[in-house]
């Protein structure tokens, strides 16, 4: 055993809980062997069973290399730390001392312990001892809000990591106009105003932080070998695409670590997306006009028999007349048919004719002449229709034939 320093009687008075005040080198199964310039002068309850303050003092000595100047009741640990200028705060940090004020959750004397790992939900893993047992050092997890007295941080170690970033400059000023779907690159220059160095290995990155994403990658990583020391700047360049709809858009980006801890200034990109142009002046913009170079082509335009989808409905020359040697014959036969058999025969005849495109359709000629008789009864210019529409024409002919059959059978209204 190494010699003890300090007056143990004083330690007994300052100890956090009543117990047998006795100099010990072991408490709760831990040996007081760490070197921090002093020996642990906290008491260990019941001889070697344990005591929360003994353990907290012990861990500060071992991990901080610091001999705490006090060993009071646990409930006063935070006050003692504050009065001596120790850094304290409300957030759990790895390698800190937690303090819980007297309560049902922490005994009438309060409680302290050592924070091993802090988690995103505010909970933390700890090691603790209790006065009065159960004896030993215990591994626990404490929920967020448990440390009502806050946390005491290492005063001699590096200052707590502080990530911070400040906006310096940018490209693409606010209100820049873009055409729908236009690509551009946004650059933000940010300064490292924290005390950490940004490296890819330390998981520093530039991340999307809300609103319009502009089709950009969610995260932009630092390239290998990059390093941004405190005070240094970095240009983050993010490829973006303007939305397709007209309007004002804003999206936010920010520094981030691990993909989970955003920090620093929240930067944004704000652009105006112009409406689609109307190059042919037909009153319809390019997003809805299927040919913005032809003023006669637009949604709702009269469909002409010209081999062009004039009305932008995805079909060409619908409603144009059939050629005399094809659909007209079938139609005439149907029209004249007074019995079901005749109608069926007509329709059957129309099928093969419609399905076999004539030479002028196959060679790409417009077949405009075919549409000269749009109002002719039974007209349906299947001859000039593309193969994909032939089936529709066939179905239309079938329906027409059926309708006429029904009409022929229906009693005629008497006149006068």
């Amino acid at each position, binding site marked *: 055993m190494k010699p003890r320093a300090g007056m143990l009687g004083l330690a007994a008075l300052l100890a956090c809980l009543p117990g047998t005040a006795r100099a010990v080198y072991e408490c709760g199964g831990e040996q007081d062997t760490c070197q921090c310039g002093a020996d642990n002068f906290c008491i260990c309850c019941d001889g070697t069973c344990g005591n929360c303050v003994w353990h907290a003092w012990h861990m500060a000595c071992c991990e901080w290399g610091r001999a705490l100047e006090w060993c009071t009741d646990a409930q006063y640990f935070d006050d003692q730390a504050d009065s001596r200028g120790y850094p304290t705060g409300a*957030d759990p940090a790895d390698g800190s001392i937690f303090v819980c004020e007297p309560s049902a959750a922490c005994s009438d004397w309060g409680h302290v312990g050592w924070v091993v790992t802090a988690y995103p*939900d505010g909970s933390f893993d700890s090691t603790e001892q209790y006065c009065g047992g*159960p004896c030993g050092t215990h*591994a626990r997890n404490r929920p967020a809000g*448990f440390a009502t007295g806050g946390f005491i941080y290492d005063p001699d170690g590096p200052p707590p990591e502080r990530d911070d970033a400040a906006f310096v400059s940018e490209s693409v000023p606010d209100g820049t106009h873009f055409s729908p779907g236009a690509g551009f690159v946004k650059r933000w220059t940010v300064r490292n105003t924290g005390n950490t160095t940004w490296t890819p290995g330390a998981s520093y990155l530039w991340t999307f*932080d809300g609103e319009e994403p502009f089709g950009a990658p969610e995260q932009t990583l630092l390239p290998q070998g990059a390093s941004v020391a405190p005070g240094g700047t970095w240009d983050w360049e993010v490829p973006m695409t303007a939305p397709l709809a007209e309007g004002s858009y804003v999206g936010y980006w920010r520094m981030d670590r691990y993909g*989970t*801890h955003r920090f620093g200034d929240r930067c944004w990109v704000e652009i105006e997306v112009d409406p689609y142009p109307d190059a042919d002046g037909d009153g319809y913009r390019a997003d809805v006009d299927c040919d913005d170079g032809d003023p006669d082509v637009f949604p709702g335009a009269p469909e002409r028999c010209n081999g062009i989808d004039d009305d932008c409905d995805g079909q060409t020359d619908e409603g144009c007349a059939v050629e005399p040697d094809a659909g007209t014959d079938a139609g005439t036969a149907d029209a004249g048919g007074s019995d079901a058999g005749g109608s069926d025969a007509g329709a059957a005849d129309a099928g093969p004719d419609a399905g076999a495109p004539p030479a002028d359709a196959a060679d790409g000629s417009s077949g405009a002449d075919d549409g000269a008789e749009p109002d002719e009864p039974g007209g349906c210019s299947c001859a000039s229709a593309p193969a994909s529409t032939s089936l529709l024409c066939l179905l239309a002919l079938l329906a027409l034939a059926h309708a006429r059959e029904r009409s022929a059978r229906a009693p005629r209204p008497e006149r006068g």
Partner: protein
Amino acid sequence: MRTTIAVMALLMLACACQPEGTPVRVHDGTAGPFLVSPRWSADGRRLECAGLGGAGAYALDLDAARLTRAETAPAERSQHGRAGELRYEAYRGRILAGGGLLAEDAWAPAASPDGSRVAYCLGHLSAATLVVQRTDGAVELRVPGAQPAWTPGGGLVFCRPEAARGPDGRIVIAASDLFVLAPGAREPQPLTRTPEIAEMQPAVSPDGARVACSDWRTGSLWVYGLEGVRP
């Protein structure tokens, strides 16, 4: 008619091909605040949650997909359990039943709906052990796991975090999946196998049909269906 039947058949096929427990991300932590500690509202239409580090309070309306700041922090974990004669002393982590000591150093205790069992954790979260113990003292289950939540039917949902040391030496929860233990079962079954999501803090909906959890990697909130899992 035939078209309708065909569409219905396709839909049924799509549903049949969707694996049970398929996650639905109800909040994107990369595009909004980092959220943790989800709790269901009594009507099962909202998730109350906290921000990073347990700071702040939020309410997520699941129907409207709208996140708002809340005035108060989320309530204590809803466990669908009744304490009965179970008592928990947080200081030493003691669980007592009928005056007898069931466990020490326990944390995150949750009583089963019928009060006959209690689930709790031991050790550090980074290497936690989940224990299910009857109030008469018999231990029924002892497996790696943490943060248990009971379903109304007496099943159990919990997470199994896997810790790793980050580049700066810190311990982080690098991965976690959810597991379910059906009533009377001895072997937990995985509910999720999603290495890209670190599912933590499962919370079972009031009707027992869904479980919400927080992804500790991104701060997103996910909801899984429990239909077919029968926990």
